[in-house]
């Protein structure tokens, strides 16, 4: 990553992702329509610290692993009695960024919950499985060739620590799932839908892969 891109992330006065974090902070305090409660009503200041670093997690209600964005929607439905936000919508991205930002500087800590084992295994398998017309697996680029170049772009190790991320290519903030879907289009595979269990499984594997690395949300990436 160029020095200027790194500088954009390192300084909160330069980081475009902070627009969403700020927005998320406002939404956190706001009463959603028809609801009696805002997020802040239940969650005391500082209580979100460390949360994002242990997601995806097993959800007791849905009885399956879910990503942070889905957990926020779970809260909205169960505790605020409002509609879930559309996945990848600006409001949900703002809330997710705000929550994940509270874990900035904390190490990625995937939960040791054994109920996640099967899903994590599937995620790991999928990571090493070839896909798409280009017939490439995640591992082939991001493990075997990390640090190398694809065209003029440097191949990253592909850690999720900055997500949701302000991507220069998007000129927008986006989730890890958006990036994974883009990767899949990149190898000419049919991308999984937002919120698909396959994407959550990949996220589970990426969390183990990045275990101990520090969260950076909001990251800035080319």
């Amino acid at each position, binding site marked *: 990553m160029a020095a200027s891109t790194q500088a954009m992330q390192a300084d909160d*006065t*330069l980081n*475009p992702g*902070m*627009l*969403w974090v*700020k*927005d998320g902070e406002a939404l956190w305090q706001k009463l959603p329509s028809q609801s009696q409660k805002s997020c802040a009503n239940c969650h005391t200041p500082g209580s979100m610290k460390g949360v994002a670093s242990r997601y995806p997690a097993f959800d007791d209600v849905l009885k399956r692993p879910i990503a942070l964005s889905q957990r926020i929607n779970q809260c909205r439905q169960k505790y605020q009695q409002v509609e879930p936000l559309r996945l990848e919508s600006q409001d949900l991205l703002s809330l997710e960024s705000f929550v994940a930002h509270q874990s900035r500087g904390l190490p990625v800590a995937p939960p040791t919950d054994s109920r996640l084992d099967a899903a994590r295994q599937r995620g790991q398998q999928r990571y090493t499985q070839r896909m798409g017309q280009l017939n490439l697996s995640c591992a082939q680029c991001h493990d075997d060739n990390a640090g190398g170049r694809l065209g003029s772009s440097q191949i990253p190790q592909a850690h999720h620590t900055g997500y949701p991320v302000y991507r220069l290519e998007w*000129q*927008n903030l986006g989730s890890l799932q958006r990036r994974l879907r883009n990767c899949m289009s990149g190898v000419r595979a049919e991308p999984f839908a937002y919120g698909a269990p396959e994407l959550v499984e990949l996220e589970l594997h990426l969390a183990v892969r990045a275990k101990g690395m520090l969260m950076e949300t909001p990251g800035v990436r080319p």
Partner: protein
Amino acid sequence: MARTLINAPKTAKRGEVIEIRATIGHPMETGFRPDENGKILPRNIIKKFSCRYNGELVFSAEMFSAVSANPYLAFHTLATESGTLTLTWEGDNGFSQTETISLSVVA
């Protein structure tokens, strides 16, 4: 109301030059980009930014389609007296937004 991220010092010494950084959330749709059907998406950009210091224009920018989305500006001004800096963005489709910041200037 678009989101803004504005950074400026709250206080300054008289005669000091301060830096103001301002980002505003805006797609800056160029007017050159086709949609998936090949039809050109209409231009929707911020065209003008101005900074007034206690009413006096101290900096302005004319933006074109070549300015990135969520336009960012970092500019300077001389701290002369305490007061209000008024930042205004104007653009296509009647877009207009104003944000104010206070500046306390000490001797």
